[in-house]
């Protein structure tokens, strides 16, 4: 908008919103130079994270996680199926992430977007290679029947850092799963009414994500705008003993020192998430 005062020296001024739309990168840089982010956070500040357990009554285990405006819901449904011939005493755990048009206009209806597929694949690898739950405990009768846990994660509102939200939702929903006692009799699986059996979770990994801006500013828990401008992402997953489970880095180049900073910040974040989940457990 033109500044209509009679000061001849004044150049054209724009409203901040116009500036953001025309020059998003420069807009972000102006904030970063003042050591603050456009949403008012400091570089090291994670957005407010909340967890609600058992929010879906029809699922065998569920949780809803909010990180700032990013909201994901995870529901776990248990079904009985035949095991894989090669692994007759192991059940299945199938994570699936859905980024539907409801969460952001950037996702179109139709088959899952590339980002949704990448999220599902990364979650699957994390569960498999880091051995979050012992799949042998999902066996009902060797070679005949096993539990299949379908973990459907739906993003309700997309505002960046969905991977962190998905990991917290998935792990907390797994903790929340209550299965009935099941028996295998003459080709049939019978289950008790009462659902009381919890899963034996070996490891509870949580992730922390970062975005690097201009090769030197490390922004923790980037929101959608920061993610899309920096096109950079580092995710570090640690477990309760402080061991690393996953490091995933894409985008611009970074140094080992920056990676070390990310790892130590991820460990600090782990403690915060544990206390949030403990609180959520007490709330039910």
């Amino acid at each position, binding site marked *: 908008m033109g500044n209509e005062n009679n000061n001849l020296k004044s150049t054209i001024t724009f409203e901040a919103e116009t500036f953001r739309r025309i020059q998003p990168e420069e807009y972000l840089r102006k904030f970063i130079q003042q050591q603050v982010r456009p949403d008012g956070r400091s570089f090291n500040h994670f957005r407010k994270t909340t967890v609600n357990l058992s929010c879906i009554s029809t699922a065998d285990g569920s949780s809803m996680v909010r990180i700032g405006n990013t909201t994901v819901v995870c529901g776990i449904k248990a079904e009985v199926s035949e095991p894989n011939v090669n692994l007759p005493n192991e059940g299945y755990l199938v994570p699936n992430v859905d980024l539907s048009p409801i969460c952001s206009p950037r996702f179109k209806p139709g088959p899952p977007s590339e980002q949704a597929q990448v999220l599902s694949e990364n979650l699957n690898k994390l569960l498999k*290679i880091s051995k979050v739950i012992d799949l042998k405990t999902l066996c009902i009768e060797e070679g005949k029947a096993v539990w299949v846990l379908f973990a459907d994660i739906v993003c309700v509102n997309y505002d960046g850092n969905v991977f962190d939200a998905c990991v917290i939702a998935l792990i907390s929903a797994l903790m929340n799963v209550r299965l009935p006692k099941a028996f295998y009799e003459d080709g049939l699986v019978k289950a008790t009414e009462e659902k009381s059996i919890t899963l034996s979770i070996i490891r509870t990994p949580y992730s922390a994500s970062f975005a690097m801006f201009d090769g030197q500013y490390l922004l923790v828990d980037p929101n959608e705008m920061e993610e899309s401008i920096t096109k950079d992402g580092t995710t570090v997953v640690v477990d309760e003993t402080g061991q690393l489970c996953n*490091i995933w880095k*894409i985008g611009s180049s970074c140094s080992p020192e920056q990676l070390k900073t990310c790892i130590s910040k991820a460990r600090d974040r782990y403690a915060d998430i544990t206390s949030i989940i403990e609180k959520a457990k007490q709330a039910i």
Partner: protein
Amino acid sequence: MANRADKRSFSTIRPISISQSLLSRDGSASFSFGKTKVLCSVNGPAEVKLRDEKLDKATIDVVVRPLVGTPGTKDKTHEYILRSAFESVIQSGLHPRTQIQIVSQVMMDDGSIIAAAINATTMALIDAGIPMKDIVAAVSCVINKEDQILLDPTAQEMENVKSIHTFAFDKSSSSLLFCESLGLFTDDQYFNCYELCNVAAGRIFEEIRGAITNKLQEYQGYQTEL
């Protein structure tokens, strides 16, 4: 200490072979680590679909084709990795409103497939003459049950391991462009793998330079002596 199945030492990569200009596209190359082989073709800068057109830079489209069957989530993830690794080096601002298409075809998967795909893509982009501010090379390694680091693992060596790591570095500053580490590992193990792969990436850059020099000398032979 060489007790790997193929008699390599722990910190040796398999023999690399590179060939260029195999297809009638703008650029193509194949890269192999031992038996693992990826063929990559690059077309562009070419006309772009209106839907994908970007006003200030080229659209980079990556397609990964598996050896058999239809592409699944794993191939989509590889597409995402390739695109994000190369978006940061391709000077896409020099060819606005065009498309650079990268097609990566797995020819044989015997471990370290992402690393081979990244290296094949680098070669194909060079062959196509796509402007890049740097080139990328990737190497994988695994940490086995005995806490030994095995560089450039075969498919067999990638089974039953504690962790799997893939690193991609750029040439001029040898800093990290892409990393995927899975499994369970400590900080020290991670940075040991980092260093080992960084050194190995340097060897791959040498191989790439050698391959390019050979090819250019061949072409130079057609020309009169200066």
